[in-house]
Structure formats: C-alpha cells, structure tokens
C-alpha cells in the first residue's frame, strides 16, 4: 500500500556563512510510516529538521505539505501545519507539573483548563501506551519521562507529523524499547514519524525507510528491509569501511591508579559517586558505562583534582593524590579529557587559536614572563599533521573547527604530554565514523604503550569491542566490573538500570561467569 505524502522537500538548501549545511535536499515523509534520517555528525540532519519546525528558513528550495507548497516562517507556522518536533534538549518548565507544562503551550481562544488537559493526557496515554502522571512535577521526572511528556505535548497540540531528534541518545536499552513501542503505535494510528539517529541498529529496528545525508548532501533513500549496517555505513561515509574495532592483547601490568571507597558530592550537595572501588592497570582500557549523569562527570573531575572527594583515597603509583591540586596531578602524568555536550566546555578555550590551546597545560613552564608560542605552534603543526586535523592554519580559533577536529586537537594535546593514565569521557561524542575509528586507534596505541585508559562512553557496542573491562555505574554506585569479552549488551543494560547488581550478588557467593576477577578489589589484591 502506498501511503500519502505528508511533507515533501525539493532541492532545499541552507548555508551558514561559508558553511553549506544542506544542499539540494529532497525528502519525502509519508503518513503511517517511520522514516530514519541517517548521517554523520555535521551532515545537516538537525538543520534540515529545524527548517521543518520553523526555526531556520531555507535559502532556496520548496516545501510541500499535503501536496501544497508552503512556507514555514516560524514555529507557529509549523504548529499550524501539525508538525511537532521533539528536540534533544527538552523545553519544559521544571517547577510545573506535566499537565501545567502542556497547558502552558495552548493557544488563546482554545477553551483549555487544567481538568480538560489532564483528561486529554490520559486519553493520549491510553491510545498509544504512554505512562505519565499528569500531576508529577517535571523536576521529579527521569530523562525518559521528560521525553515522553514532550511527545505527549506535541500530540496534544494535534501533531500529525512528529520529528524526533536523537531521542535514544539519553535512554537506556530498556527505555529505548519502550519508546519504540509507542512509536509503532503512533505509526499504526497513521502519524508520519521522522527519527534522527546515528545508531545503525536502531535504524534497522524501527524504520520503514532510511534517508541518508552526507556532508549536507542528499545521498539516497532506501527501504530498511533491503539495508544492512554495512550498506548504510558505506552510504553514510561514502566509501568501504570495516566496522571492527581492534582490541590488541597487552601484557597486564600493575595497577597505575586505584580508587578506594571514593565518595563524591555533586554541585547540589547530593552524593554523585557512592563508595566506589576500582583500579586501572597499565596497558588496559577500562570502560565506564552508565546512563548520562550518573556520576561520570564528578568522577572525572575528582580524578583530575578539580573536585575534592568526601571520603576515600585515590592512589597513583603508591601515592595518595586525593588531596593534591589539579596542577600536581597533571605533573603526575594523569591526563583527563572530558567532552561535554557542547564539546567545548572543558579542556579548550574556544575563542583562542589551536596554538594557544596547545600550550594550555605547559604555558607556565620556565622563568620568562612571556609565553612561548613558538613551541605551541610547532606542537600544533605536529598534531594537525599526525591526526589529520582539517584547519586553515594553526592560528584558527578552535570554535571555528568542526566537532571531530576539535576533539582531535584536545586528544592530541593530551597524548603529546606523554601521560601514564588517560581519563577520557565521551571522546567520540557526536563524531562521525571515520573520526571515531581514528580516536579508537589512538587509544589503542596508548594502551600498547603501557598507558592505563579510563574510557567513559555511551555506545555499548563500541565499549564491548574496545574495552578490556567494563565498569557499570548506576546512580553513582558500581553495579559490577565485567570482562568485556564475556558479557552482553543486555546484561550491561540491566546493570545500568540497577536491575542486576553484581557487587551485591557477590556477597551471596553466586559468581556469574564473565565477571572479571578484579570486580572485587579485595580479591584482586590477593
């Protein structure tokens, strides 16, 4: 059966300054169908969808809604065309309840009140299988509940065309399944759904058709049933790729960094990390898995000396570093790089040049009152050469570089200083496949050199093939440390939500296969 077209784009182009974000994009979104929009980061997926939701206006090209040419000048126009977008960053008022948040967005003239909103929310929940308490305050909600509320919000406003921008990035495996369940219900009810993601397995699971973008250009649209992970990747990257991540064998060395009974508070004064024990050996990559915001940031900051632990010890080569200043810890050879959501927040000064960013940690060396930019420039040239950073010059401000190049600059500087422990959080966040694999290679190279790597990641598939061991955090507690070769995604997912707690099971003497021997520090010490 051929579904009717909801939105059709013809030759839509959008540029930002000299950057072409979208070039001659053609797209067909149909009712009763889920369309995946696939592409590497910076390929223009979000820009394209922002044009549909009225945030940007195309430079040229035509948009048809239900077969008629339209012009979407503002979010209100999009609303009138029944287009609803669920953004990566939720647009909710924390202090309001679910129902109040929905009432907030209703338009004048409509006779809505809190009671009718609540009734309607319940109806929508029953219809599609959502679970939401209309009277719950948003600040009490989990990420997945907030997302559900966002979806209900656009449905409440009568959206027939739903656009979801990377909805699964913040969800656990189980929550993703639940989301897909309601998406299928909505599809059955005849809605048109566009889902943006760069997780290939999800594309294959949920969508009917896949449209692929590469560097702002439209490549092709294929039926999902005819596609494989490899074929999609090749279209996305534009050449043949191998999807294997190497895990070289190394000789296990003594623990370089050991954390004992570490307890850390977050900015709000709540416990972010509770009584955590683990160690990193030279020549191994220890992965840290967990839902976003369950203590990863605080853990990184504490190891780097930026945050003082409440209790516990951090032992680096036999010396307690938990009370040292960030500078002293740097001098011990512990390098930390944290890529936050905006990718520029910590570790780089975005308005300064690559050269100036290179000397960030070494600028104070020597007695001269002046900084040594000459050295910084040659280091910048070396990093640009070795890691293939695309930049007009060493004097280009870092914020002008694309995401992948920014991360290469950051990681390049960290490795150049010759650390013995590398703490790296989300080093491939938002990177395209090519750049990601380059980063994995760099980390593997460091591992072969005997460096201990703590890899805080998001993608379980990557962690399963790259890391030697994986530690799972849930609400700041260690759920267990497992051998990456002997575990499964499902097990990790259950540990991430706290459904399995190996450290507890251990006390009942039921050791499950696949648990690394050092899951228990006391045992590992023997």
């Amino acid at each position: 059966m051929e579904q009717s077209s909801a939105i059709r784009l013809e030759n839509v182009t959008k540029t930002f300054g000299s950057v072409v974000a979208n070039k001659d994009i053609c797209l067909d979104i149909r009712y009763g169908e889920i369309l995946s929009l696939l592409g590497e980061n910076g390929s223009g997926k979000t820009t394209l969808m922002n044009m549909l939701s009225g945030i940007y206006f195309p430079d040229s090209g035509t948009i048809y809604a239900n077969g008629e040419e339209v012009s979407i000048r503002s979010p209100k126009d999009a609303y009138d065309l029944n287009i609803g977008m669920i953004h990566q960053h939720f647009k909710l008022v924390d202090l309001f309840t679910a129902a109040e948040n929905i009432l907030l967005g209703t338009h004048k003239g409509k006779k809505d009140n809190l009671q009718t909103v609540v009734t309607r929310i319940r109806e929508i929940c029953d219809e599609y299988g959502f679970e939401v308490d209309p009277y719950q305050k948003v600040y009490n909600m989990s990420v997945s509940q907030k997302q559900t509320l966002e979806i209900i919000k656009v449905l409440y406003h009568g959206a027939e065309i739903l656009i979801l921008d990377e909805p699964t990035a913040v969800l656990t495996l189980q929550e993703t399944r639940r989301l897909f369940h309601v998406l299928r219900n909505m599809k059955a009810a005849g809605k048109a759904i566009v889902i943006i993601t760069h997780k290939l397995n999800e594309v294959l699971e949920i969508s009917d058709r896949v449209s692929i973008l590469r560097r702002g250009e439209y490549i092709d649209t294929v039926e999902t049933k005819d596609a494989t992970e490899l074929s999609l990747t090749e279209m996305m990257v534009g050449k043949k790729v191998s999807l294997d991540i190497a895990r070289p064998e190394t000789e296990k060395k003594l623990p370089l960094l050991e954390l004992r009974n570490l307890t850390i508070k977050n900015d709000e004064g709540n416990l972010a990390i509770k009584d955590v024990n683990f160690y990193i050996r030279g020549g191994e990559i220890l992965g840290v898995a967990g839902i976003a915001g369950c203590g990863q940031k605080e853990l990184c900051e504490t190891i780097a000396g930026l945050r003082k632990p409440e209790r516990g010890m951090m032992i680096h080569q036999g010396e307690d570093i938990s009370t040292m200043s960030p500078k002293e810890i740097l001098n011990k050879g512990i390098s930390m790089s944290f890529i936050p959501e905006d990718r520029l927040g910590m570790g780089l000064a975005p308005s300064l040049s690559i050269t100036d960013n290179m000397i960030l940690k070494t600028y104070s060396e020597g007695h001269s009152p002046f900084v040594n930019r000459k050295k910084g420039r040659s280091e910048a040239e070396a990093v640009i050469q070795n890691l293939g950073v695309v930049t007009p010059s060493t004097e280009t401000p870092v914020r002008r570089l694309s995401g992948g190049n920014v991360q290469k600059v950051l990681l390049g500087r960290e490795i150049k200083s010759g650390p013995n422990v590398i703490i790296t959080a989300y080093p491939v966040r938002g990177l395209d496949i090519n750049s990601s694999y380059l980063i994995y290679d760099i980390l593997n190279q460091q591992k072969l050199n005997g460096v201990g790597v703590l890899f805080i990641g998001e993608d379980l598939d990557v962690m399963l093939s790259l890391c030697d061991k994986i530690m799972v955090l849930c609400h700041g507690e260690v759920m267990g440390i497992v051998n990456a070769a002997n575990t499964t995604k499902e097990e990790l997912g259950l540990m991430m939500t706290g459904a399995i707690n190996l450290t507890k099971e251990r006390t009942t003497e039921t050791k499950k296969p696949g648990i690394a021997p050092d899951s228990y520090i006391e045992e590992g010490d023997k």
Partner: protein
Amino acid sequence: MSHYGSTKEPLIRIVKRDGLKSWIGWLIRAGAILAALLICALFVFTITKLNPLEVYESMTKGAFGTTRRMWITFQDTALLLCVALGLAPAFKMKFWNIGAEGQILVGGISTAACMIYLGDVLPLWLTIIIMVVASSLSGALWGLIPALFKSKWGTNETLFTLMMNYIAIQLTAFFVALWENPVGSNTVGVINLRTRGGWLPEIGSNRMVSPYVLPVLIVLGLTVFMFFYLRNSKQGYEISIVGDSENTARYAGMNVKKIVLRTMLLSGGICGLAGFINVAGVGHTISTNVAGGRGFTAIIVAWLAKFNSFVMIFVSLLLIFLEKGASQIASDYGLNNEASEIMKGIILFFVLGSEFFINYRVIFRKNKKEEEPNA
C-alpha cells in the same frame, strides 16, 4: 501557486557571518563613519541651513586648529585612553568592571592629599613617586573589593563596581569640603597655585606644548606595556583563558580566584593612575567631576578596539575629536550643546551599528517571480 499568500519568504532574515576578511570589516567601519557624516550633514543643513562642510571644518579647527588645541586634544585622548587601558584586562577576563569612575576618583583623592600635605615639603621627584604609588594603590583597592566579594561570596561584579562609584563620589565630596579653599567656595581650587608643589613637570620650552607632553608620554608607555602584557605575557594568557572558559582554566590548573584578584588589582591600579594624571598633571585640583564620565566612555573604547591597545588610541582620538569639535561648532554657530550632542550620537550610533553588519548579513526577500520566470 494557488496559495501564493502563504508561500512568502519572511521580509528580512538575519544570517550570521563567519570568517569575514578583516579588511572588509574595516571597510564596513569606514563606510559607517562616512554614512554617519552624511547623515550629520543632512541634519545640520535641514535644521540650521548651514553649509555642512563649513561645520565640519569648524569641528576640525576646534580639535586641531592651533598647536595648543591639538595638544589639549592629545592630552584628553590620553586621559580617556588610560582608563580604557585599565579596563581592558578586566573586560577581557569577562569581569564587568563598571567602576572605573570610582577608581579614578579615589586615585585622584590620594593624589590631591599628597599634593596638599607633601607637595611643599618633599622634593618633587619624591612627591611624584609617592603620588604614583598612593593613587594606583587606592585605585587597585577600589577594584579589589568587588573582586574579593565576588570570589568569596559570588556577588555580582557589575552592580558592585557600579555602586562603588557612588561611594567614591561621596568620599570625594567629603574631601572637597575638608580641603575647601577659599572657604565657602565649595571647591578645592588649584592646589599649590604659586609653589606648583606636586605638579607634574613640564617638558620643553614651548608653553603651548610643554604642560601636555608628560601625561601623553606616560599613557603611551602604558599602551605599549598593555599591548604586550595582554598578548605575550603568561598573565595575559591566563586572562584570556579565564575570560574564554573558566572551567578550562581550572582544568589547566590555574588558580582562577588569584587571577581574578590580580587582574582587578591591575585594572583598578591603572584607573587610579588615570586619576593621578588628571589631578597632578592636568587639573591640579580635585572635584567630583574629575572622572567626568570617562569611566563609562572608556568601556566603549576598550570593546570597540577589541582590547587591542593600539586600536584604542584611534578610538579614543575619534571620541575626543567629536567632543572638541562639538563644543567648537556650538560656539562658532551658536548651536546649543544639544545639536552637537546629536551629531556625536549619530556618529557613535553608526560606528557601533556597523559591528552588527560585520557579524551578520541581512537578506531581504527576493521577488520569486522575477527570479524564476518559468516557475
């Protein structure tokens, strides 16, 4: 195209520019000044029926007409520039120091105190050294207080520095009353009029030039210092990092609190020094008008020049030129002060407005039918 009404593009769209060549930027700025002069000419002609060219000539005469006028213009430029140099490190660090007025005033008070109590007692060179130290220390203290409160209790530095201005004005009023001379005049009068104790020495024999040389030289020295301090020194590097991303600064092991306090000491210190130049080198008296709004105008100078001290020279010269020219046409043509203020306003409006066009591009709606005749 049956629904033509709903397919219109928005009338105006604003798009961010990136990577504009710097010479095009300067071209836009020059164009803005030219356009401003044109609008001013139109304004002058329609309101007063005067020949705009003559009015501009009179403005130039007002600022550069005689050697003496020219040097007074230079001196006033130097005074404004000095404050801007003080503000530059603070603003580069994204510390909103709105308190230059107060820092100038307390610098002026300490200078005046030295002149009154030491000027006729100690040798001139010693008095000057004491004045330099006292004025910059008091200015630095005035800048340090808000910085301390910010780093200790997270107070808002914009409001805090602003309020410190009013305290400084009241302090000045108190000292004016204390040092009143002659009694009942409610002014301090020229300090050490006969002995010239504590006055900055004149350089050269040309009476039209000599009183103005030293202030200009001091500020030029400071300009060179500040340029290399911000661009090449380690402390300058720290300032740019803290200004760009405080998290990154902490991550690199910098002591952010220390850097903020140190920079505000420097910033306040230079503003205090501006007070010293004003009192010991220019006015030889103290009043609540010593700062004269320079503390605020200098913010424009520092930002317009993007903290480049050498560019600041030209920006402050432009502002002072407008001021001098404006008062000249006011007296030449009997235009009241408001007329010249309006012209100054127009020029500033265009110069500041040009920054928008340097950062953004404006796209007007194209007529679709003309563009695509076949559509």
